[in-house]
């Protein structure tokens, strides 16, 4: 309180010093000592003095009791770092004597045995050639608690963030939407006791609810909600999606929005449901995220952040999935166009191949008719001819089926395929085209190659495209050198397929250009064949590339990861 009394200006330093000395000597120090809210003790081998705060802090009966104790009575036998209290105390005292003062944390013990953390300040006071220790203890129980609380909150937040990161990673790595949403729901549920969550999707026509993920909701409830319409009075989620705003129902058994679904809520043991719509970046409703409790409950405000994270991540996941689907559809449409174009190029060969059996069918039928008009019919001959007609009919229909499978639109479907089988089918398909173009096809197919996972039609398309390109590349080659080699082999855990021609070849520097869309060297090509082929192979996790053929010409190869039996 010394400086608190405003007085005349302190212009005479000597005068001030004198006054200060006077104040101290008048017992002011003693007053500071006694009134300090921090516990203070004087230590000179034993405790020689202490203030009231020290008595209170340590729970002693009075000053006399406290002064009769040794320092080891005021601490548990060991400190939190594992050293024994007397040994550590000695170290701390030595440091204080060496430096003049030393501040550290300490675990203290009250008289009743309870422990509490303190911050200790030791100050060495020289007195009659000795050093007396001035000991200040400050109770830091609350500070420690706050620190612990803070670090716990931090850990929880970090874990939550990391969990969110993992879910986003799953999206990026192409995990299925239901897996992504299930992980998201599980992550959110872990943040609050008794919380059950679900993500629902809105059908693309914006009318119906589609199940998304709800790993902890009863199956009966999931079944009932899946396919239900949205509307102004359709539970929490159906209404939230309909209104495009959050719908908080604190008790499902009384809220009018749940009137039609009351029984379902009872059966499922659910009471509170707070639902928030999930939007696209453009504000279109994609679905909803809901929080359920088994008891009536109103939000406390702490859920807002969880809901925001959940709806945002779920939105990204659903939009990503829809974009992927759209991309897939576009890709398969484009692949279809390319296939039809290729089949158009093959039209002459196809006509030839179909007319071959048709010619025999029509001719044999004519013969049968004229035989049957004769009086003495040799039915054995007629039967033979009919037999031939029938087998040619089957042959024609197989040719058409083969072509149809390539021309018709289809949804790509991965299955385990033998690349050599697919290559053989394609070689059959282009057999006549090869004749027409006077190309000899050599097949070097390794029958023992392991299976790959791909769509049959699309894989046929790639090989067909490579074979057609190869044949076309040899138009200027001498007829007796027009050789197309189709090879399959195993290579480094991959199945390799290579189509080599003896055409003009490719410059290595320009090889990559060939795969650009609309790059064409043909008079009537789309220039999409190789670009599409590459995207098809890449969609099956493989690679497609071009390189010069050592014998002259070019080699187009692709490799696909081999699938072992176990992964079936």
């Amino acid at each position, binding site marked *: 309180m010394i400086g608190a009394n405003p007085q005349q200006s302190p212009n005479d330093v000597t005068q001030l010093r004198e006054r200060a000395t006077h104040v101290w000597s008048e017992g002011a120090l003693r007053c500071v000592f006694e009134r300090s809210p921090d516990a203070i003790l004087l230590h000179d081998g034993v405790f020689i003095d202490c203030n009231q705060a020290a008595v209170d802090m340590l729970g002693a009966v009075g000053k006399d009791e406290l002064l009769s104790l040794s320092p080891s009575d005021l601490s548990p036998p060991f400190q939190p770092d594992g050293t024994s209290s007397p040994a550590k105390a000695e170290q701390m005292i030595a440091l204080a004597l060496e430096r003049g003062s030393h501040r550290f944390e300490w675990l203290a013990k009250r008289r009743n045995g309870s422990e509490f953390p303190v911050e200790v300040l030791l100050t060495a006071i020289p007195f009659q050639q000795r050093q007396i220790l001035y000991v200040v203890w400050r109770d830091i129980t609350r500070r420690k608690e706050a620190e612990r609380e803070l670090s716990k909150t931090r850990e929880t937040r970090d874990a939550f963030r990391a969990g969110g990161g993992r879910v986003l990673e799953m999206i990026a790595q192409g995990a299925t939407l239901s897996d992504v949403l299930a992980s998201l729901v599980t992550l959110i549920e872990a943040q609050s006791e008794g919380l059950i969550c679900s993500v629902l999707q809105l059908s693309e026509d914006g009318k119906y609810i589609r199940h998304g993920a709800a790993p902890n909701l009863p199956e009966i409830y999931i079944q009932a909600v899946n396919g239900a319409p949205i509307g102004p009075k359709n539970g929490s989620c159906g209404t939230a999606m309909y209104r495009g705003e959050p719908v908080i129902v604190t008790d499902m058994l009384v809220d009018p929005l749940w009137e039609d679904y009351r029984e379902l809520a009872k059966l499922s043991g659910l009471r509170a449901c707070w639902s928030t719509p999930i939007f696209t970046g453009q504000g279109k409703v994609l679905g909803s995220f809901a929080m359920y409790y088994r008891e009536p409950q109103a939000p406390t405000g702490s859920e807002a952040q969880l809901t925001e994270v959940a709806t945002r991540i779920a939105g990204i996941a659903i939009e990503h999935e829809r974009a992927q689907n759209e991309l897939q559809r576009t890709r398969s449409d484009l692949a279809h166009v390319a296939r039809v174009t290729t089949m158009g190029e093959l039209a*002459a*060969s196809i*006509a*030839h*191949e*179909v*007319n*071959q*059996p*048709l*010619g*025999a*069918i*029509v*001719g*044999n039928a*004519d*013969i049968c008719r*004229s*035989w049957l008009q004769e009086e003495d019919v040799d039915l054995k*001959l007629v039967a033979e*001819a009919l037999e*031939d007609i029938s*087998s*040619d009919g089957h*042959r024609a229909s197989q040719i058409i089926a083969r072509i149809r499978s390539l021309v018709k639109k289809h949804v790509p479907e991965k299955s385990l395929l033998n690349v050599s089988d697919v290559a053989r089918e394609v070689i059959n398909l282009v057999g*006549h085209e090869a*004749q*027409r173009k*006077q190309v000899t096809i050599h097949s070097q197919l390794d029958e023992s190659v392991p299976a790959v996972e791909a769509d049959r039609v699309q894989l046929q398309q790639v090989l067909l495209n490579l074979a057609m390109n190869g044949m076309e590349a040899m138009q200027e080659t001498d007829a007796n050198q027009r050789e197309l080699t189709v090879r399959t082999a195993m290579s480094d855990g991959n199945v390799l397929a290579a189509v080599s021609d003896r055409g003009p070849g490719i410059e290595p520097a320009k090889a990559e250009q060939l795969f650009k869309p609309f790059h064409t060297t043909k008079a009537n090509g789309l220039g999409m064949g190789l670009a599409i082929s590459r995207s098809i192979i890449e969609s099956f996790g493989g690679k497609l590339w071009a390189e010069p053929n050592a014998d002259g010409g070019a080699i187009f190869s692709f490799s696909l990861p081999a699938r072992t039996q176990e992964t079936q």
Partner: protein
Amino acid sequence: MTEKPPVVIVVDDDDSFRNFLSRLVSTIGLKTVPFASAEAFLAAPPPDGPACLVLDVQMPGLSGLDLQRELAQTSRPLPIVFTTGHGDIPMTVEAMKAGAVGFFSKPFRNQDMIDAIKEGIARDRETRKQFEELVEIQSRYDSLTSREREVFALVTEGALNKQIAHQLGTSERTIKAHRAQVVQKMKADSVAELVRMADRLKIRHQKSA
């Protein structure tokens, strides 16, 4: 001299189509000799009776048109009826220009094929007859002495005995005797027939008048 029975040679890589053609040909009482490729046909001995070739345009290896060109180089090209699964105009023109009897896209009318085969065989029979006649005339001509050949050439050019005698520096009577020998050895009924034979043999008097 009796004629060997005519045959239809079918060259087509499609088994079922070859079977059908054999069946069709059998309905007009003819025999078929089938081959699955042009190469196999070329490796086989040529037919010794009148024949017609039914040939597929598109085959692995030597194509039908290739085979037509190859046969055109030989002494006795066979009449060819072409078939194709899918023909185009340039292909048809090329084949017909090179003397094909017919060109049919599958499927075709059986009767059209039969007519073409019959025409082919008739053409080959005619070619064959003419070829055999030529061989016969040639062998008769080969039996003439060199003086008789000179007389033959001058007679067929329309020279009178007197002119021939003068040109060869001998008497008219000697020429008469040679001339009788020529007519007898060549089995000709008239001078007109001798002239036709000379035409076939492409004989011209070598020494200038």
